[in-house]
């Protein structure tokens, strides 16, 4: 079913956003989101999954959500899910890119699956949901902070009633609160608390201690007043069990010592200084005692009243608030500047570091090196093992990076599978290369994910400051560009940026732009290369080959634009167009040819096309619209295309075969050439690569391979087509080996439709001796034992 009208998705999105934005908490936002998304898509089931768990789902009987199956489906492209009583559901899953990444999963009974516009709408919905959830988290954090300060305000009110004569306390506390809320530096806030406690309680000595983070058996005095320099220095560090402050921490309660010298816990230095009384109250961080505030007096008659005890607790409470707030700020800063998955700095923090490093380098005349890393084939890990495995891998790579760097270097995750490293003080390019080499080494050891050992490589681009670019963005961009080039040169390598890379990039960008324009502007044409029966010499079929007739220019070489079109995904619309156009044209020729064996058509199918869920439907539609006999159609697939997602490729090929379409394995011999492919996949034709045909005349190794392939074909009842035949000698050899069919310049180069039509007419006028413009007459065949007919069916039907 197709959504009615272009405004459909905008409207659905608008309804969705209004509904989700109105939710008061995350759970209801998630529940609302899956409900709305399912309603908009007319899907039967919907769910949100996160951290290997199903957060919420709809469409399953209550208490019977198939968690494992849903999680598996969420991590797989074009997945299906079997539901009792409903059958097979098509599943689509899109990322919810919030601070905690999750996925929105939908399932529908409709076998057509989800339309591209629907998936794009779903992505937009997921983004809307992510934003809402992040907003709700922020609101929640603010609400909690507000609750804390409201609770504090309530305490203050209680104190006010008790201590009306001590209005100053509240004023002091209010000032402290203001400085906390204005995010004054922590030491300033703690100093203000110490000063306030001293002033209001009237004791001569006040101190605030915190437990050492590195050595929790000791405390350090972080703020004092009223202590001589000598005494302050003597008591700066003390054991956590010592003194009124120490005990307040250990016992987590208010400690009052009226006879200090006689107390077991007394600190010697203070006894020596004739301290008489002391009172300590614990200070907390996230509910745990982490320090204490202490007041002490040299006056022997000093007695702490209940009110004064309350006051010290109030100051201690404010110190706790200040610590908690500082920690929350630190955490928020960390969250804002760090990648939640790997804990590494994110792009924003990395850029800040880089800018500061560049400023230092400019002042000191040194250089800064930036490395841009992109994991090779990471998408394959995600697609085949699921997103959870992908996440584990990223975490492991982050750790390896950290371990391989110097303490002064900064590693960051920029997003997806991209990392960056900043190294300062590199004098020469060799230093930069050494860092890159270390990283390559660090990644060499396999990484274990979910019990599997994965070999990971990264392509690394290196850029050094002072090569024309001095701002952070430009340096990072140069490193990115060098990485891109490194990837093109070969996975797992690194490359240092050079200026001419910009030129190559701009050429590529121009090519991409022109390619998009070409699709819109009908600049593609199909050329046809005849396939000849080596016994009858007849043209039994043609291979359709796409050519780009760029406006006002010569044809662009397919070698130049096909890889770019593959990368950009444009190969799918181009491939679809070629299929329909070639079928239409060949059908016309078939009609002209009249009775007799109809002309066959071979069309190449790219790996990307093979992965398209709509492929089979597209081909059915093309066959229908051109009234093309499927038995006359051969689809050519390379081994590499089969290697990716073998299970799915197999299913697709069986679907195509069930339509009556023949399947050819292209460029056979150049890849793995595994026999298992021939056994496993429903292949009707093997195309022998030109490189073997080239060597066939010399009796070389290539000739042996060609012979073996042809033999293999005969054994497995698979037809063989030799590609790139250029000489009569090659032709003779192929005949001797009993290869069934051939194509190549010896017969004809690929021709425009009109030229091919002339050729076919010429052949019809002079059967068995074709020859005209572009076609070389075939030498007389030698006597053969058997006249193979199988391939005729394969190519012609």
């Amino acid at each position: 079913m197709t959504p009615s009208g272009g405004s459909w998705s905008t409207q659905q999105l608008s309804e969705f956003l209004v509904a989700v934005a109105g939710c008061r908490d995350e759970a209801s936002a998630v529940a609302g989101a899956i409900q709305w998304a399912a309603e908009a898509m007319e899907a039967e089931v919907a769910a949100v999954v996160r951290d290997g768990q199903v957060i919420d789902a709809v469409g399953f009987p209550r208490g019977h959500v198939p968690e494992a199956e849903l999680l598996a489906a969420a991590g797989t492209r074009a997945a299906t899910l079997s539901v009792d009583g409903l059958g097979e559901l098509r599943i689509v899953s899109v990322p919810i890119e919030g601070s905690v990444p999750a996925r929105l999963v939908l399932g529908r009974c409709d076998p057509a699956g989800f339309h591209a516009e629907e998936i794009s709408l779903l992505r937009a919905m997921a983004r809307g949901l992510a934003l809402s959830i992040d907003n709700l988290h922020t609101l929640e954090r603010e609400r909690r902070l507000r609750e804390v300060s409201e609770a504090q305000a309530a305490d203050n009110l209680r104190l006010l009633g008790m201590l009306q004569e001590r209005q100053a306390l509240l004023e002091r506390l209010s000032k402290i609160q203001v400085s906390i809320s204005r995010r004054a530096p922590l030491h300033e806030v703690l100093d203000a608390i110490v000063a306030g406690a001293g002033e209001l309680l009237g004791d001569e000595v006040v101190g605030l201690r915190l437990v050492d983070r590195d050595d929790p058996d000791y405390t350090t005095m972080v703020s004092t007043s009223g202590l001589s320099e000598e005494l302050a220095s003597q008591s700066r560090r003390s054991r956590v069990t010592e003194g009124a402050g120490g005990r307040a921490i250990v016992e987590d309660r208010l400690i009052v010592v009226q006879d200090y010298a006689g107390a077991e816990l007394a600190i010697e230095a203070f006894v020596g200084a004739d301290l008489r009384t002391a009172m300590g109250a614990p200070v907390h961080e996230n509910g745990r005692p982490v320090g204490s505030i202490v007041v002490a007096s040299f006056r022997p008659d000093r007695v702490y009243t209940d009110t004064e005890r309350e006051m010290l607790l109030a100051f201690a409470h404010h110190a706790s608030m200040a610590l908690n707030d500082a920690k929350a700020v630190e955490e928020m800063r960390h969250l804002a500047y760090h990648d939640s998955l790997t804990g590494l700095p994110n792009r924003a923090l990395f850029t800040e570091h880089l800018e500061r490093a560049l400023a230092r380098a400019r002042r000191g005349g040194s250089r800064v090196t930036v490395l841009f890393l992109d994991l090779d084939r990471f998408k394959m890990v995600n697609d085949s093992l699921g997103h959870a495995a992908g996440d584990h891998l990223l975490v492991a790579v982050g750790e390896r990076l950290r371990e391989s760097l110097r303490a002064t270097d900064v590693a960051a995750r920029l997003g997806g599978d991209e990392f960056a490293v900043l190294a300062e003080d590199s004098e020469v390019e060799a230093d930069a290369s050494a860092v890159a080499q270390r990283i390559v080494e660090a990644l060499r050891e396999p990484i274990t994910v979910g019990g599997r050992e994965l070999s990971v490589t990264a392509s690394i681009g290196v850029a050094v400051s002072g090569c024309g670019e001095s701002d952070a963005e430009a340096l990072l961009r140069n490193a990115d560009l060098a990485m891109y080039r490194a990837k093109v040169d070969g996975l797992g390598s690194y490359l240092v940026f050079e200026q001419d890379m910009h030129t190559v990039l701009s050429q590529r960008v121009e090519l991409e732009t022109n390619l998009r324009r070409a699709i819109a502007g009908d600049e593609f044409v199909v050329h046809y290369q005849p396939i000849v029966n080596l016994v009858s010499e007849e043209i039994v079929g043609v291979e359709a080959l796409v050519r780009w007739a760029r406006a006002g220019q010569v044809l662009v070489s397919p070698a130049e634009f096909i890889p770019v079109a593959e990368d950009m995904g444009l190969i799918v619309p181009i491939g679809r167009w070629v299929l329909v156009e070639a079928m239409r044209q060949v059908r016309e020729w078939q009609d002209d040819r009249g009775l007799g064996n109809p002309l066959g058509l071979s069309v190449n199918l790219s790996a990307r096309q093979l992965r398209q869920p709509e492929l089979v439907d597209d081909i059915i539609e093309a066959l229908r619209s051109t009234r093309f006999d499927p038995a006359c159609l051969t689809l050519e697939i390379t081994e590499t295309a089969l290697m990716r997602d073998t299970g799915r490729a197999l299913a697709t090929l069986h679907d195509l075969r069930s339509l009556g379409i023949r399947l050819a394995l292209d460029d056979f011999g150049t890849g793995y050439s595994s026999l298992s492919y021939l056994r496993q996949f429903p292949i009707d034709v093997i195309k022998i690569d030109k490189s073997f045909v080239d060597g066939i005349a010399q009796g070389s190794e290539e000739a042996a391979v060609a012979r073996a392939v042809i033999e293999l074909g005969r054994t497995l009842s698979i037809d063989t087509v030799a590609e790139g035949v250029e000489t009569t000698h090659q032709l003779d050899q192929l005949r001797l080996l009993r290869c069934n069919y051939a194509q190549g310049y010896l017969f004809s180069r690929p021709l425009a439709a009109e030229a091919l039509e002339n050729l076919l007419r010429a052949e019809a006028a002079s059967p068995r001796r074709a020859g005209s413009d572009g076609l070389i007459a075939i030498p007389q065949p030698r006597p053969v034992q058997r006249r193979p007919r199988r391939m005729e069916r394969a190519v012609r039907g």
Partner: protein
Amino acid sequence: MERIFTPTELSAPAALPGTASATRWVGSGASSTADSRTAGAEAARAAVRGDDLKLLVVFASQSHDLAALLAGIREVGGDAPLIGCSTAGEIAADGPGDAGVVVTALGGPGFSIATAAAGNAAADLRRAGATVGECVERVEPRPHRVLLLLTDGLAGDQQEVVRGAYGVVGAAVPLVGGCAGDDLKMTRTQQLCGGEVLVDSVVAAAIASDAPLGIGVRHGWRRVGDPMLVTASTNNRVLTLDDHPALDVYLDRLDAPAEARTDPAAFTRFALTHPLGLSRRSGEEVRFVAEADFADRSIGCIAEVPQGGLAWMMEGDGESVLGATDEACLDALSALEGRDPIGVMAFDCIARRGVLGEEGIREEVRRIGLHSGGAPVAGFYTYGEIARTRGISGFHNQTLVVLALS
């Protein structure tokens, strides 16, 4: 005067191949006798024509004393599970009627039934839907199941009831049913469960069967004019369309008669045949405009009209609406996997009655009867219809929903 609508023993017990014991039967009966207890007993007696009675479904006019009517039915049916509701008109095999009662009976070991009711529905419609949905867990496992829901259409957004039930039963169990009526008084509807007469409730029956159950749903309305943007709405109330007061846009675009602009009753009569359409993936969803607030210039619908969406004025005529009747019946029957129906239930929007007129609804019921091929037919005119077979949404307006049992 007694009026028996249907031939009561309407089909021979159907048997599953190879399991002669697994039989099912469906019967229906109706009465227009004025005395409620007598009418109930007459209709039930006509409906119950087999052994092993499993479920009674009652559709009755509020002109009856429903408590007395139930007592009459239970004289015949005993303690057999029973659900039902008040109507805006009843449907039986030989035609539509008012001020009457129609009883459908299901029986035989081939059926397994569980019923449930949830009160205080308006306070939390989703909870009410979920509560009654639980009865699916109590029904014996059979290959074909459906949850029949009868709700209070005046209690708020009925899509919430569907969502609640769906959340419990999941996608594998279709939902079907309708909103109770009150003869267009639009004040209070009633639901029936066991021997009790309820208000503000949802009642349901989980029907599990050895043989297929088919559901058809069609409306027959089409878009007219340009779309309007719902610029402000809260749940069922539409406040503005294209940034203008919704009521004014509605009245002006439809060139409404003068009395509909001032008189609430006249507005409801007019709105009955002028629903709104909301754009959905596979077409449009129809929204019945129930009332207008002449003070704040808003309009109220029977289900949610989301803010930010597009809406159309919809129109229909006798032909398109009757065409939908045929299609709904054919859809329901085609799901029976080639079996003949042994009973048919229809949930028909009161608004369609407005478009078709008295002659038209007689024709509609005649067509339903023809499609059912002599199997018993029962149903009622509703304030909203429920049918969820595909997707997740299942509340409809101005629609005919047909449930065929085989």
